[in-house]
Structures are given as structure tokens and as C-alpha cells.
């Protein structure tokens, strides 16, 4: 499988990264080089192998359903590029 300029633009749009035409032209061969190298995994027989998601056996814990945190609005907003009236502010969204 290889990617072309249209695919790279689509991936970039999915990833919400603006790309210029020059960047796309540079990325196409670069990504194909990496993807081509990754494809050697096709040689490995993985029939009947379960995908590994957690490397060290561990179980997910449950904790009591109680409030353990909160009342830190100002701390949370402290690093926001634009905070107004106790909220994160973004450009106007019209759907």
C-alpha cells in the first residue's frame, strides 16, 4: 500500500494539521518510504495470535465512586490561550 498526495492531504485533515502543497510533496515519498519498510510485517505468520495490548499482566481497578478532586477551575484555566468568564473561549462556531 502506498499513499499519494490526495491521501496525505486526507490524513493531515483527519489529524487536524494544516499542510502546504510543498509539504505534501515532501511527505509523500517520506511516508511511502516508512510505510514500505513497515510492510515487512506481512511476512510474519500471525494466524491464531491474539493481539497484545497490555504487556505486563495487570487488572484495571475500580475505585469508590466519590468525588476526589475539583474546585480548581482557575488552575485549569490558567494555561488557556483565551479564558473568559470562567470558560475556555474559542472562535464562534455556527453549525
Amino acid at each position, binding site marked *: 500500500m502506498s499513499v499519494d498526495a490526495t491521501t*496525505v492531504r486526507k490524513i493531515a485533515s483527519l489529524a487536524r494539521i494544516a499542510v502546504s502543497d510543498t509539504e505534501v510533496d515532501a511527505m509523500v515519498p517520506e511516508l511511502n518510504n*516508512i510505510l514500505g519498510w513497515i*510492510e515487512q510485517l506481512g511476512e510474519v505468520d500471525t494466524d491464531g495470535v491474539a493481539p497484545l495490548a497490555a504487556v505486563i499482566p495487570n487488572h484495571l481497578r475500580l475505585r469508590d465512586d466519590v468525588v476526589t478532586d475539583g474546585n480548581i477551575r482557575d488552575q485549569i484555566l490558567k494555561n488557556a490561550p483565551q479564558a473568559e468568564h470562567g470558560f475556555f473561549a474559542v472562535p464562534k462556531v455556527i453549525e
Partner: protein
Amino acid sequence: MSNLTDLTVAGIRDGFRKGDFSAREVAEAFNAAVAAGKPLNAFLVETPEHALAAADEADRGRASAEFRPLSGVPLGIKDLFCTAGYQTTAASHILEGFVPTYESTITAKLFGAGAGMLGKLNLDQFAMGSSNETSYYGNVISPWRRKDGGNAALAPGGSSGGSSAAVAARMAPGATGTDTGGSIRQPAAFTGISGIKPTYGRCSRWGVVAFASSLDQAGPMARDVRDCAILLEAMSGFDPKDSTSLDLPVPQWEAGLSADLRGKKVGIPKEYRVEGMPPEIEALWQQGIAWARDAGAEIVEVSLPHTRYALPTYYIIAPAEASSNLARYDGVRYGERELPDHANLQEMYAATRAAGFGPEVKRRILIGTYVLSAGFYDAYYTKAQKVRALIARDFEQAFQQCDVLLTPTAPSAAFALGEKSADPLAMYLNDVFTVPASLAGLPAMSVPAGLDAQGLPLGLQIIGKPLDEQGVLNAGLAIEQRAGFNARAEKWW
């Protein structure tokens, strides 16, 4: 008094307890070394006042004989750990100016153990890189130079390149690192220091800027094995705030140190050779085998047949997880915002991320987005998770025949800055020996073992069974004692 910056973590701790010097003297000596080390660009933020405050507290404690495990010890902190009140950028532009209001679990533990902070250490942007060349704030320059007289600036390794350079240049007795595919071990090998990545889950990831969450593990980097044991003890432990944290007691690794390997089996994986590997590395590996035998170990050849598939597996899984983790940088809640005129919300996201991420980070986000996209998920991501299972099984089977594995840490000594940065694949291949243990979540460390013909350090890697950090440290100690590595970079900065 001898130069305080030549002391190890253990040397500082013990000398401080005995009253040979005050904690303030130590902090002042390292603060001065940090200030003098600016040409290496190892520190992004210097925090001399933090080191001094911790030192003064340690000195006050000494008056009443109150000693904590790291009283009097100042450390460097990789700028991937959130530190309350101190800028944390992960060496990225998108987090420029981000000052966390909270403390990562690891730094909270270290400071709670009495350590002070000398500063925040440079790294590859979001820990993505093997040479520290992807930092938005410039390359870290290794204190080491080839003896050919060319004075080429060398890579300190990556991603924990600020950490490795700072420890090797005696700007910090120890530092935190993080290791996703080799980011503690490879820089340690490049700079002639030690570093250990513990079993996945030993060190809390809470407050550590995330790269690939199923792989990311913090660990210490220091001058020797004992210091690694001391620091790892202080960093490890259960943390309910990290869902993959292991709820297990922390062993007393320092007290358990023993270089006696009698009764232990050291496995030599025959697949840990790559084309073009310098003969010096093969020779050093053979020397390491001889040292292990000398320490009483039995040597057994083992096979890890899927080794060659570890890197391509890693370069699906790590970018996939990164593309998901880095979705949080949207210019809304923290960090940079890029808002072109009349841009709507979606355009703001795209512009912010285009301006805020460096080329390597974008490359990995795009690869990750691609392999997770509809139609390709099974062919890439699920396939990689299956091969990952086979890689982990290789290790399980090998550990039925041996207690630890001994390999080279990296397929080369430090390369020059710029030598590999134009070819992403060539750079990725540098992690060929460190990535497999990361994929299997195993504890692994690098210890300095010798110099190449150019006078540059080379490291040997020890990989252990899950939770057997002690076995790794002990084998490391046996190598360290026999290698007698005492070379250091000649000061030019």
C-alpha cells in the same frame, strides 16, 4: 575538598550525612556547573533556586539528624515531567509557556525524598527522536568529542539527550529520563553513563507528557549502577492516578546489589547483530560475555526469532498511540494558539497544530493517523499488536533458559549531529536493540563498557524478566566492576 560535582548520588548522600559538606555547597557547585554548561544546551530551564531551597531544607534537617533518602542530592529533570510552577514544554513549540499547576508523581516522589531540581532538561520534541535533534529549542551537544581532532558536534543520544549530556558533563549527579523505545538506554550508551528502564508499570506515568502510553516508562540516568538503584527506588511505586501502575511493593534494590552472578544464566541472543555493525561493538559484546562468565554466570545462547520485526512493529504502535495522545494539543486548553484572520474552530486547530509541532512529530502523527484510519486499522495496527505478542513470547521462551540477556545497547557509537537527521529510517534503526524490550515491557539497562577507536563510549544492555530489576542491576554491576569504565569527556565548554 575534592570537586563536589565529581561525586555520585551515593557519594553526595553519604558525604552529606557524615558532615563532609553541606547540601548548600553541593547545590551551589552543581548550579555553577549548569551555568557554565550552557554551550551544551542541555537545560531548557535552570532552577537554581529550587536546588538551593531543597538543600537548605536538607541542611536544616541535618541539624536534627533527619535524613531522607535523597537529602542533599540535586537532580536534573527531563522536560517531559510536569513540574508545578516551572515551564514544561516537552521541547515543543506548542507547549511553549505552559506552566503546570500540578506536579508529576515522579518529581513529587523525588522532591519528597529530599532531592532538589537543578533545571528542566532538553529532549527530542515529545520524546520523538534518537539524537535530540528534534527539539524546538536546539540540539543538545554531547560533551564527548572524537579524538580525530575534528571537533564535530556529536549527538548525546535521544530522546533523553539533555539528561545524558548533563550527567556525563557533571552538571547533575543524576537525572530523570523516559524510555519509549530506548530513550534512556541509547543516550546513556552514547555518553558513557548508566540508565535503567524498569518494568512497565513500576514508575507512574501521571504528569509525564504522553507519547506512546503502552510503552512509556520513566527511569533514572546516573553515573553508575548503584546510583540507578537509589534513584529508581525513589521513583517507583504504586500510583492510583495511573491505571497501568503496578500495585506492588518497591524492592530495596540498592541493599540487594550483588555482583556475584554464580548460579545465574546469562542469555546471548544470536539475532542481536545488524549489517554494518562496527567490529568494535561485536568485540565489546564478547568482552561483556567474558566478564559475565568471570562473575560466575553460565553463558547460554538463546534465540529471539522475531527481533528483526520489532522496529517496524514499534513504528506502527508508537505513532498510533502518539496520534491519539497528541490530539489534546488543540490551542484551546493550554499551549500555543494560532488563529488566522476569520478562521473558524477547525481552521484554528489545523493552524495551531501546523505551527506548534515539529516535522518529526507531524510525521509520526500522520503515520499514526494513517495506520488507525478506516480500512487500514487491521492491516497495520492489529497486525502490529499480534507481532508484538510474538516478540513478547520470544522473550518468555528465552527466559525459560536464562535469567538475564546481554546485548549491545546500540549498533554504533554516538554519531555526529546532522549525520542521520535527513533520513528518518536511518535514525529509527539506531533503536534496533532497545525497542524489543520496550515492546515486551521488560526492565533493561545500559552500562558503559568501553571506548571505540575514536574514544567514544559504548554501552552494553542487560534485559531482565518482568519485575526483576534486581537481576538487571546485579548483572550491570558485575559488568561495571569488570569494565572499570572511568573515561570522561574532556571539558571544552
